[in-house]
């Protein structure tokens, strides 16, 4: 990977919660077009890592750069480049689906919301629910709306935390289709999931995070699911 291709770069990333170390000195560099899936047991620090990569959480130590620009809390340009779908939806329950997207679109300074919002709702199959308050939507619908919110501003770097949790097969299919579109060579995607099938299908790179660090990482050259599952258990149990 040549230096100017790097979209996301983390160096010595560490996060502590009191005496608990969630992420311990993790390094990561990703280029445009790469899709990294991170697997790992509960409590491995995956969500903390994702939150730090997205600028939602300040690292205890280390730095994150997006296209060479450090994530600074006094500078807001980098936020245009990042879209994050957390296990929390970042949605307001008493605003409608459409109002939520319009609200976030306005915060991002988007000009074409009249066209963009209906198009994004349609892409995730929620056009008929545009006027429904979010609290009236099912979990799967909220997940899809959350994805639409994360991608609304066409970010270069997309961070996905457990996007498949609680989705029915139909909703999972919509999500798979949208995530497939993210593999356009322009974007960089980091996804945390426990879903081996979906995680392997999407990834160009794989990592297994255990106790705050990557215990295994490699390229996804058509890895067999069963073989990877065995590897995963070996890695996790080996570090337990």
């Amino acid at each position, binding site marked *: 990977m040549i230096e100017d291709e790097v979209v996301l770069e983390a160096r010595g990333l560490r996060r502590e919660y009191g005496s608990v170390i969630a992420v311990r000195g993790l390094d990561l560099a990703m280029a445009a077009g790469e899709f990294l899936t991170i697997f790992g047991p509960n409590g491995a620090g995956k969500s903390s890592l994702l939150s730090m990569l997205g600028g939602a959480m300040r690292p205890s130590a280390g730095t994150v750069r997006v296209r060479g620009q450090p994530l600074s809390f006094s500078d807001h340009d980098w*936020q245009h480049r990042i879209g994050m779908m957390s296990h929390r939806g*970042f949605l307001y329950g008493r605003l409608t689906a459409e109002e939520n997207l319009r609200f*976030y679109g306005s915060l991002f300074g988007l000009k074409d919301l009249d066209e963009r919002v209906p198009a994004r709702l349609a892409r995730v199959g929620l056009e008929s629910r545009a006027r429904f308050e979010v609290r009236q939507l099912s979990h799967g619908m*909220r997940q899809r709306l959350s994805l639409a919110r994360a991608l609304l501003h066409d970010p270069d770097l997309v961070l996905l935390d457990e996007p498949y949790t609680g989705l029915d097969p139909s909703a999972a299919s919509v999500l798979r289709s949208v995530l497939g579109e993210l593999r356009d060579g322009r974007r960089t995607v980091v996804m945390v999931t426990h879903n081996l099938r979906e995680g392997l299908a999407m990834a160009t790179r794989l990592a297994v995070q255990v106790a705050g660090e990557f215990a295994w990482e490699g390229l996804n050259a058509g890895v067999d699911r069963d073989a990877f599952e065995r590897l995963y258990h070996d890695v996790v149990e080996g570090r337990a």
Partner: protein
Amino acid sequence: MTTYWKQVWVIIWKDLVLEIRSRERIASMAAFAVLAGVLFNFSIDTTTTRTQDVAAGLIWMTLVFGGLIGVGRTFQLEAEDGAFQGVLMSPAPKDAIFLAKTAANFVLLYAMSLLVLGVFAVFFGLEVGSNFPWVALVLGVGALGFVALGTLFAAVSTGTNMGETLLPVLLFPLLVPMVIYGVGTTTRLIAGRPFDEVEANVRMLGAFALAAVAAGAVLFRYVVED
């Protein structure tokens, strides 16, 4: 309108729409204001006490405690589904977020202030008369200072284990100068004194409110950053 002010406006819009739809804070603040007016009405012997002498203090006390109910829940409404995290991850500057939330809280508290004034006017038979605009101004300036500090410290207390219990502990000492000037000024205006007599006090209240807004805008980012 610049992007900055559009961001401020859209957050104000969002806060007010959420409040109108949920009515969580409006209802509790209004209920408290009316209840306080009713209770004070029955607890004060108007044959021995001139109501206009004590009304201003009671009005401000109702405002402070009622305001606390509303401002204290500012960020609890945001905590639902982590929505405020989404706002913090947007390019909206932190001071724009603070100004917007302060403005939305101001709308609520000022509406409550006028309600309190009306309730006390009815129950205490206050005749504010031609000084009504000035009393409304004083309450407005006081409400601005209150919500600026209240919004800042609500963000502080929401991020702690103590939650709402911490808010009055942090907030009340800083409100003392505002309440002293506010009560003194309101008392004179209710007594029918001319505005010229209290203009210096109103300026002090205004300076306090502006200082609170400016300090909040500067400090808010340090409070909400993880």
